[in-house]
């Protein structure tokens, strides 16, 4: 009988162990699917449910907070998703939170993502409808990629044409010409030589300037000799004085000219006679003729005197004196 009882105890333990595993399994799964515990309901409206089904997970900032309870077609274009959310999230989810449909991993199940926006808005209550964000579907993404691909192919073909054109162009032949680099090299060496010369020249100029500063050479003297400057200043003064003298002279001359003019106007005086009296000119001419004749006679007389023995000695003395002076 004792073994019977102990056998029964073992059997009871065995059966209860099995039941415990069953209950644990069911409870854990139920808890994950939010069957137990209190929940509240939030709603969201989408244009496309993207394969979302009843029982999909709802995540708040990536944390599992509930499941999709119901998906109903509101109008022909709108789908209302009803979500059971853990009541603990009542103090967290706010009315302006944004709902979107995402994928768990790249190819996983669909999930509903609730993303918080602010901390100011009031908390969402049971049955509230949250705003939704249009989701980027893979198809739309591929569509965009297709467009860009086509654009890229157009750009590539145009680039190809451009390159071909460049290949045919003068620039390309210039670039392709192997003699150009050699020419450029020669040119550069010429430029280098020229610049060397220029630098030598600049050195010379530099020296010249230094010399001038030091007062060497004509320009240097001009620039650096203070005595000369004084001289020049004095010369300037004198030129001014001379100018003034010339001024007064011109004034005097003016007076004289005025007098002469006055004399001429009155038909008397020497000047008038000189200018207007033709008889005088003839008289002067004859006088000058007479003087010439007289001078010729005088020079003949002087030549005769030179040759006369009385005066020959004097003349010889004079000539000797001249030679000596030379």
């Amino acid at each position, binding site marked *: 009988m004792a073994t*019977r009882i102990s*056998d*029964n105890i*073992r*059997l009871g333990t*065995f*059966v209860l*162990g*099995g*039941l415990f*595993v*069953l209950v644990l*399994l*069911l409870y*854990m*799964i*139920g808890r*994950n*699917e939010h069957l137990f515990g209190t929940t509240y309901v939030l709603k969201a409206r989408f244009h496309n449910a993207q394969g979302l089904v009843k*029982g999909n997970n709802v995540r708040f900032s990536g944390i599992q907070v509930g499941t999709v309870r119901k998906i109903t077609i509101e109008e022909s274009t709108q789908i209302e998703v009803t979500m059971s959310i853990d009541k603990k999230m009542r103090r967290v989810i706010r009315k302006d939170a944004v709902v979107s449909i995402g994928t768990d991993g790249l190819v996983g199940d669909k999930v509903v993502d609730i993303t918080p926006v602010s901390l100011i808005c009031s908390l969402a209550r049971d049955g509230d409808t949250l705003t939704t964000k249009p989701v980027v579907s893979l198809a739309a993404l591929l569509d965009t990629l297709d467009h860009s691909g086509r654009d890229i192919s157009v750009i590539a073909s145009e680039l190809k044409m451009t390159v071909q054109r460049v290949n045919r162009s003068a620039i390309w032949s210039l670039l392709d010409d192997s003699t150009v680099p050699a020419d450029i090299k020669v040119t550069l060496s010429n430029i280098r030589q020229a610049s060397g010369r220029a630098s030598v020249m600049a050195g010379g100029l530099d020296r010249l300037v230094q010399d001038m500063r030091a007062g060497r050479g004509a320009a240097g003297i001009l620039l650096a000799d203070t005595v000369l400057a004084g001289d020049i200043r004095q010369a300037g003064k004198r030129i001014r004085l001379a100018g003034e003298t010339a001024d007064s002279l011109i004034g005097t001359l003016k007076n004289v000219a005025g007098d002469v003019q006055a004399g001429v106007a009155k038909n008397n005086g020497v000047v008038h006679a000189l200018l207007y009296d033709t008889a005088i000119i003839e008289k002067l001419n004859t006088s000058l003729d007479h003087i010439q004749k007289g001078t010729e006679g005088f020079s003949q007389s002087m030549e005769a005197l030179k040759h006369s023995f009385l005066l020959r000695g004097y003349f010889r003395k004079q000539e000797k004196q001249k030679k000596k002076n030379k």
Partner: protein
Amino acid sequence: MQQETSIKLFLAEAGDLARFSARFFREAFRPPYEVAAFIRQCFVIGYRSLGLVSLTTFIMGLVLTMQLRPSMVAYGVASQIPAIVSIAVVREIGPVITALIFAGKIGSSIGAELGSMKVTEQIDAMEVSGTNPFRYLAVTRILAATLMLPVLVLLGDAIALYGAYLGVNIRGITSFNLFWSQVFDNLSFSDVLPAFIKSYFFGFAVGTVGCYKGYSSRKGTEGVGRSANSAVVVASVVIFIIDLLTVQIAEAIGIN
């Protein structure tokens, strides 16, 4: 001619088995109940099988995990090993492996026990003495097998998952908490309930086939061995057929 006979024999046996099952349902739900004998059979059939089932499911969980690991690593989803192992164990490997072990141990023992009682005419003697041998021998065993196998399956699942946990930790490091949450995040009712329900049918099949084979054994001691052997073979085949039917039905009613 030979073939025709064997087909006839097969169909005759199937009919006998169906009649035997029907008799079980007629007898099982009518008092008086053999409670003490039923509990005794539960102990013998359920508790005594626990060691064997524990060992096999533990090894199954461990080996499955280690075998999966290279290809999972090659796909870059080594982190999903607990998920895939838990689903495999709970849905299919736990129930089927446990049921096959159960058929090997219990089916053969029932077949041999009842067969020897049959050939030594103990059953006939009981009938003469006024006790209902079917009720006392067959109903208690079939009920015990039906009710104990699901318990064994649940315990076997738990042990297999523990083996899987050890298997994961042989090559990598996964904390028990992470393993736990990965297992339960990926299990759902549709994984557990069909498997749990089908294990009742497995247990019923093992008990019924064992009892039928024992009850219908003939030709002395040689017949006892044959009935024990065929009980295991037929029970195993029936387990797989039930498995196939379960998955079809679960698919059809949308809980797969």
